[in-house]
């Protein structure tokens, strides 16, 4: 197992290098640059800026330079926000996105999964239909609609929660609900169908034939087997959530990574885009590793060596 984990961690190196390479090439493929303005600057100034940020070198030299510095923990400086390093920007934005993401993830896991379990156990009853109806709606409505509705009712009309910002707990409530609702619904549906499939299995009938009380059959023989597909999807979702959701962060004016990502692409702030891409892919790779390790615990047929 330890060997397997080490091997997987070593594998992240080529993955990250490739991610950086592709981000690099894609950024270069977009017309314009960080110093392109509506009113064009004198050529001499642009040349100076390009030289200052190393943009005058051929792309492979830039790539090599970037990797060389990044390995030493230096992700460069922002090209549009003067004097700020990428590390400090990401260092501020990442924890914010992570809190928002983890909150929404917890919502999906602790509300969505149990809802799915209950719906499956009450299959074809009104509780099942209500749960599935609500979940379908929850999954179908995008953040861009949920978020303004939440703000309108809970902030503007009833004044229960602040409408924007981040920091104290009460500011976190609405964004977490806005971002988490869709995924809660999604996980409720996923868990329900996984449970229904497991309930059909022969070994569940065996457990029942042993005379186990139904609760024990569900707890011991159904839940764990049903969680395998849930874990599969939860890993990448966690990666996706903690790296920021642009829409939610934008609507609630949250200084997280999602916003920076979009802004820096628009501004061609190459070093920030690359820095965020590296963090994002590292988190996703890590989340997948966690999923694969969890698999080993959930399903003994999977063994790593």
């Amino acid at each position: 197992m330890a060997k397997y984990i080490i091997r997987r961690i070593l594998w992240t190196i080529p993955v990250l290098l490739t991610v950086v390479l592709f981000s690099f090439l894609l950024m270069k493929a977009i017309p314009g640059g960080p110093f392109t303005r509506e009113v064009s600057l004198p050529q001499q100034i642009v040349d100076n800026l390009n030289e200052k940020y190393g943009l005058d070198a051929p792309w492979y030299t830039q790539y090599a330079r970037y990797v060389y510095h990044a390995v030493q923990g230096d992700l460069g400086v922002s090209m549009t926000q003067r004097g700020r390093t990428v590390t400090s920007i990401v260092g501020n934005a990442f924890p914010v996105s992570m809190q928002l993401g983890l909150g929404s993830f917890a919502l999906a896991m602790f509300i969505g999964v149990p809802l799915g379990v209950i719906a499956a156990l009450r299959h074809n009853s009104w509780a099942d239909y209500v749960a599935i109806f609500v979940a379908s709606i929850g999954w179908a409505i995008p953040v861009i609609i949920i978020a303004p509705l939440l703000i309108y009712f809970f902030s503007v009309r009833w004044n229960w929660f602040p409408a924007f910002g981040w920091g104290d707990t009460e500011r976190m409530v609405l964004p977490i609900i806005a971002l988490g609702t869709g995924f809660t619904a999604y996980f409720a549906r996923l868990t329900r169908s996984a449970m229904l499939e497991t309930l059909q299995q022969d070994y569940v009938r065996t457990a029942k034939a042993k005379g186990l009380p139904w609760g024990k059959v569900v707890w011991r023989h159904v839940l764990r087997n049903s969680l395998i597909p849930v874990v599969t999807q939860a890993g990448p979702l966690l990666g996706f959530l903690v790296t920021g959701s642009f829409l939610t962060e934008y609507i609630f004016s949250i200084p997280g990574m999602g916003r920076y990502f979009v802004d820096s692409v628009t501004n061609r702030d190459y070093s920030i885009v690359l820095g965020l891409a590296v963090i994002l892919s590292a988190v996703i790779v890590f989340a997948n590793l966690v999923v694969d390790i969890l698999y080993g615990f959930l399903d003994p047929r999977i063994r790593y060596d």
Partner: protein
Amino acid sequence: MSHLLEINNLRTHFFTREGVVHAVDGISYTVDRGKTLGIVGESGCGKSVGAMTIMKLIPMPPGRIVEGEILFEGKDLTKASERQLQSIRGNDIAMIFQDPMTSLNPVLRIGYQLAEGMRIHLGMSKQEARERAVELMDAVGIPAARNRLDDFPHQFSGGMRQRVMIAMALSCDPKLLIADEPTTALDVTIQAQIIDLLEQLQDQFGMAMLLITHDLGVVAGVSDDIVVMYAGKIVEQTDTEELFGNPQHPYTEALLGSIPRLDETHRRELANIAGLPPDLVNPPSGCRFHPRCRYATQICVDKEPPLAPYNGGPGHLVACWHYRDSREK
């Protein structure tokens, strides 16, 4: 003395979107203590559903017992509460299923799955149940039992898994063992081993057995009595020797004709039964076997033959207008 198990006019139907499936349609039989009853019939004739109904292991809904009694030691299980059933399942009546590859939970250790029933029904501690599990695994012929307690099902072969299933079924010393196609999913050589094992354990534990199979060869050596089912109904019922020596129903004859015999002197082509098992949503009128029966006449289409004692032998019931002796007269 009363029978251990007495089934009276049992009907189990499934209420599906396509219509009502008459899976079990009025069957009656008895099993006595320590005896073996074989239930034979082709796939889809209702034999498994009938057996599962005894412990209410069919999905309800869509399944429902629409009529009949299941008397186990005189108590009607159709009226038993879920709680009462739980104390009977795995304890007084145990069951072995067809496919050992899917009947064990892939994520739980063998020892745990074996111990589960004993801890519930016999109130054993974890340690006691583990010890007993080793004894049971020895008894069903699993080599190096103690070392295999912590293995998972995928580390066992099909035959070994079926032995685990048997050990599990025997763990609480049941009075009745229901074996639903226990050998169907196994290699032929393993089949014989499992049947021998069941027979030997039956003597050892003194339990009654309900052996459900489509394979007459499997029941021949083990059963005291045999029930032949077709399309949810019993067509012939008698003791094993009589059934093999003096089959009366054309369906039984056809089933017997489809097994090769070692003592045959000349080569013959194995007979098969033309057509497919009937649709249980709209079963054929009259005798349900008539569309496939070569002796069928108008009465078979119009009227259902009763399952009645046949004048040749006592306790030999047959449901046919043209049973063999009547044809030969």
